[in-house]
């Protein structure tokens, strides 16, 4: 009796160990695939570097982003000002570091907010057929209006403020997310296991939140990185056109706006913030493509 129990325990331990080993092996495999995925690797590196610039850049830069030194205006890149100065004599590197904070936080906030509300709308539309038609027609209508124009009109109405830019861009991008989530969720809703849970008497919110929502997260993450990139572009375009983040605050688009007038004398005001925008968009696109391949290996060749 005693021996049998001992043996039983040993077997059990071995089983748990084997399971752990398998899990570790799987984790290793997943990690190896993550590293081998060039999109995630390079896209991730670019985004980490840009985030570091946004978080720690403003601490290390030696100048004040708002301080105007008239005698230093439009100085070319050199020893005193590494990337030159703008038309008010403000250090460009400093303004770009602070601008990274503004541009990236607008992009991130829009991406998070759009995903949250888009997921909510998409899930509701997929589960309640009565709501589906109404919500999706509203999305169709919003998506029919070209994004930049809708954003310009919304910011014009709400007033040029950072919060309003975020709000406007969220409105622009929510329908995209809602569509993606809805089409993923509709497939799940028809699965047998959902029927089984419903038969067991699960509450509706429980089915939606615990059983349908997690299955829409994969396409949602991919979408989030593309929206992040699109939001950065659109914010830069709005600020460049003078309809975005208001003037003294630095954002990459604002610096470009100031630089446009001086494009003949100060190329650095256009080139450097431009490179940062391209870099962040490129990094996010790589990351998005990479995550898509990682989650669903079928899409990669």
């Amino acid at each position, binding site marked *: 009796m005693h021996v049998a129990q001992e043996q039983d325990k040993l077997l059990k331990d071995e089983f748990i160990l084997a399971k752990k080993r398998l899990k570790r092996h799987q984790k290793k495999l997943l990690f190896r695939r993550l590293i081998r995925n060039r999109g995630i690797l390079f896209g991730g590196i670019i985004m980490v570097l840009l985030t570091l610039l946004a978080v720690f850049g403003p601490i290390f830069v030696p100048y004040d982003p708002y301080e105007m030194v008239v005698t230093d205006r439009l100085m070319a890149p050199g020893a005193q000002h590494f990337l030159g100065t703008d038309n008010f004599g403000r250090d460009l590197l400093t303004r770009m570091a602070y601008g990274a904070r503004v541009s990236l936080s607008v992009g991130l906030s829009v991406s998070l907010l759009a995903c949250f509300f888009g997921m909510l709308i998409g899930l509701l539309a997929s589960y309640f057929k009565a709501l589906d038609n109404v919500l999706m027609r509203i999305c169709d*209508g919003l998506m029919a209006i070209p*994004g930049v*124009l*809708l954003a310009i009109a*919304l*910011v014009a109405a709400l007033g040029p403020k950072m919060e309003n830019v975020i709000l406007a861009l969220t409105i622009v991008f929510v329908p995209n997310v809602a569509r993606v989530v809805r089409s993923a969720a509709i497939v799940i809703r028809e699965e047998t296991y959902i029927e089984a849970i419903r038969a067991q008497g699960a509450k509706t919110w429980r089915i939606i939140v615990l059983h349908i929502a997690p299955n829409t997260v994969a396409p949602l993450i991919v979408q989030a990185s593309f929206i992040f990139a699109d939001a950065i572009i659109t914010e*830069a*375009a709005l600020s460049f056109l003078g309809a975005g983040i208001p003037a003294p605050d630095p954002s990459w688009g604002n610096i470009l706006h100031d630089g446009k007038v001086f494009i*003949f004398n100060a190329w650095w005001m256009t080139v450097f913030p431009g490179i940062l925008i391209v870099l962040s*968009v490129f990094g996010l696109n790589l990351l998005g493509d990479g995550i898509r391949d990682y989650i669903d290996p079928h899409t990669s060749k």
Partner: protein
Amino acid sequence: MKMYFLKRLLSLIPVLFIVSIVIFMIIHLTPGDPASLVLGEEATEEQIQAMRADMGLDLPILTQYFHWIGNALQGDLGTSYFMRQPVTEAIVSHLAPTISVAIIAGTISLLISIPIGILAATRRGTNTDRTVMGISLIGMSVPSFLLGLFLILLFGVKLRWLPVAGYQPITDGFFGHIKYLILPSIALGSMHAALIARMTRSSLLEVLNMNYIKTARSKGVHEYLIITRHTLRNAFLPILTVIGQTFGSLIAGAVVTETIFNIPGIGQLIINSVERRDYAVIQGVVLFVTCTYVLINLIVDLLYGVIDPRVRLNKK
């Protein structure tokens, strides 16, 4: 075919209805009173009241909407208080440059992207393929307004080959017209070119893997004929979709691009109106561009039916 046409047309009604509500609501999103914002802080109470009546803001909101949409359906988008001119007139007078930029950009991007896409597909896996795909990935990451600025720096400031800004109507000479519009068109068209090239490549590759292409090859059909006769025709539908989508967005993109180059199109009209808080113009331009965009997409959808009989048969 008629049924298909009718169905597509009817499906537009709810979309345009929502669009009209969204655009109508824009003025009502303004915190505070739009009339006093338009007039500034110095305005007297009477002036503000007069302005409110002028803008129709003193009526119930539903009445305002039906007034606005009823007039819009008849081509009357209201009056710009700043320019003292009907909005429709203002849009029409700013339309030519925008359409010109969109058409030139569309032409350039098509002429470049489709041959390049075919080239990459037929040389799959070679360095040519990798180069084309690499460049197109970068092309998709450079927003058009930024590319416009870079082009100005290179061709306008550094090389001084082309004017950095301005516009000359086509009636004053075709080449002068092109000279001013070539940089904005490249800036606008590059992202579309990259997209179409990638789509052409992947769509061709899919068809090239089909069995009937293998059959044609084994019969000894010349590779050129395989591409032109057998592959392109069947690969064209997804390409057309992308072309349609991008052509619609060319009009919207032109709005941003032309502002960089100081081209007096509808983009400049809406940006100036934002500064002046000229709501009627903002609403009018957004409504007009959206309708154009929706219309172009409709035409593309209908073209599917013409090109691919499967579409019109299925959707009956």
